[in-house]
């Protein structure tokens, strides 16, 4: 007979059904490390982390690239849109310098203009230097003179009236308001931004879907655990919270790996960009594509993606647990 009373309170002394076995005394029982209810380190879990990492990386690259395109497009528009140019060509029998002064006066008098600056003869010569070389006697060449007119940020001035006045009073002058160029630029920048946003939306959708399905795949191997927890009296909320916590961590881990890699990549590109600034290639590149920097908002967007990954895996696991429990009951 054993004096053990596993059901004490209601028990008498229970007979030991295994009393003929040699039972050695148990070793001293200290606190035990309790294994997590949801097993860690399963192959399905690692695959889910890998999928989340790769998709976060791709989505972060897309988000960064789209933000750079949108930033560059808006820079182009605003830079070009804030300036117009007056070109004064030499006309036989007229004093070019006087014509330039006259054009500057006319431009200054027009409303909506903040600054007018005429290029000097030397500056104009420098503009053509790359094509004609140095050391020429520029007085003999009929080089047009440029006047840069800066506009205010309000509604654009009446370019038609200004152009008309200029051509009437200064025969060699013409106004280039870059209108056609700006319109094209605006269309192109708008199209690039829209296409970028559409691609980003698609990448995000694919990311969420693939991570959802990877989570459900990983959950499929856990059905026996859900059933056992249900049978031993766990509430649905308890079962769901166990899986939710586990998958939140898996998703966060995957997101952090992918998002972290993207942040490092953008950081390296930004550093290279800073290093190349001032070199001919670097300046050309920057003029065309803007600066290789996703800015604070870009880094915040990547952090947002990491959080999104964790939330998606947690939500998908919770949803799958609920579905499984509904099918058991």
């Amino acid at each position: 007979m054993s004096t053990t009373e596993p059901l004490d309170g209601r028990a008498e002394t229970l007979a030991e059904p295994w009393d003929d076995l040699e039972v050695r005394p148990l070793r001293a029982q200290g606190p035990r490390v309790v294994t997590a209810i949801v097993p860690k380190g399963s192959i399905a879990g690692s695959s889910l982390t890998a999928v989340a990492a790769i998709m976060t990386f791709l989505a972060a690259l897309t988000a960064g690239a789209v933000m750079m395109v949108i930033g560059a497009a808006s820079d182009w528009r605003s830079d070009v849109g804030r300036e117009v140019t007056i070109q004064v060509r030499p006309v036989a029998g007229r004093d070019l310098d006087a014509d330039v002064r006259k054009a500057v006066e006319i431009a200054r008098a027009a409303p909506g203009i903040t600054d007018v600056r005429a290029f000097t003869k030397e500056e104009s010569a420098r503009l053509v230097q790359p094509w004609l070389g140095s050391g020429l006697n520029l007085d003999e060449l009929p080089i047009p003179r440029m006047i840069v007119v800066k506009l205010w940020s309000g509604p654009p001035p009446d370019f038609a009236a200004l152009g008309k006045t200029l051509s009437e009073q200064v025969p060699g002058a013409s106004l280039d308001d870059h209108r056609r160029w700006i319109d094209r630029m605006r269309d192109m920048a708008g199209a690039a931004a829209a296409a970028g946003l559409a691609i980003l939306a698609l990448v995000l959708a694919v990311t969420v879907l693939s991570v959802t399905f990877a989570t459900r795949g990983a959950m499929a191997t856990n059905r026996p655990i859900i059933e056992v927890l249900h049978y031993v009296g766990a509430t649905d909320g308890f079962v769901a919270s166990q899986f939710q916590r586990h998958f939140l961590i898996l998703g966060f881990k995957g997101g952090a790996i992918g998002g972290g890699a993207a942040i490092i990549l953008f950081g390296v590109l930004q550093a290279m960009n800073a290093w190349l600034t001032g070199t001919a290639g670097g300046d050309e590149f920057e003029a065309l594509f803007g600066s290789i920097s996703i800015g604070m908002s870009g880094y915040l967007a990547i952090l947002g993606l990491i959080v999104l990954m964790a939330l998606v895996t947690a939500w998908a696991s919770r949803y799958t647990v609920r579905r499984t429990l509904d099918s058991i009951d």
Partner: protein
Amino acid sequence: MILFENVGLRYGLGSEILRDLSFRIDSHSFQFLTGPSGAGKTSLLRMMFLSQRPTRGLITMFDEDTATLSKDARATLRRRIGIVFQDFRLLDHMTTYENVSLPLRVIGKEEAEYRTEVVELLQWVGLGERIDALPPILSGGEKQRAAIARAVIARPQLLLADEPTGNVDPNLGQRLLRLFIELHKSGTAIVIATHDIALMDDYDARRLVLHEGRLHVYD
């Protein structure tokens, strides 16, 4: 404790596999549930365990109409019932100790609170030496004892066992029966679903016999 009144069960649009079941399981009672394979023993056990809803009739458990219970209330009620599955359903990534303590863990008990209790129960079912073993290395009999220990660790008022001797040799079957008899003596109501005639002949108890969808009770 459990009262079935005119309970019927069908799956989908098929004919009823269980018809007009009316019976009672009393506290501190011991009964075998038997019948040929496919007679619906497991379905009936599942209804007693609140994991299968009847298509008609009334099931009252612990004075509660089970049809009106919320999901959480059903989970709470299920804690008063222990169940032993024919295929054990132990979690392979957890040790014997952890498997057995699972019902206490899901109700929020800390490890320090239940340690002694679980160790003593494991010793009592003869698994004292296998406390840290994972289920895949346990024998069939050891797995069954671990499953029984898990079913009774939270001191249920009713213990349901589905073919507990189905996967073990006759000698071990006898030992398991002794285990159930001892648990019954301690105050737990027992329902053992089995088609093992020899097992039932070893212990004189009430028999619930399922035949062609109906239940016949032999007190």
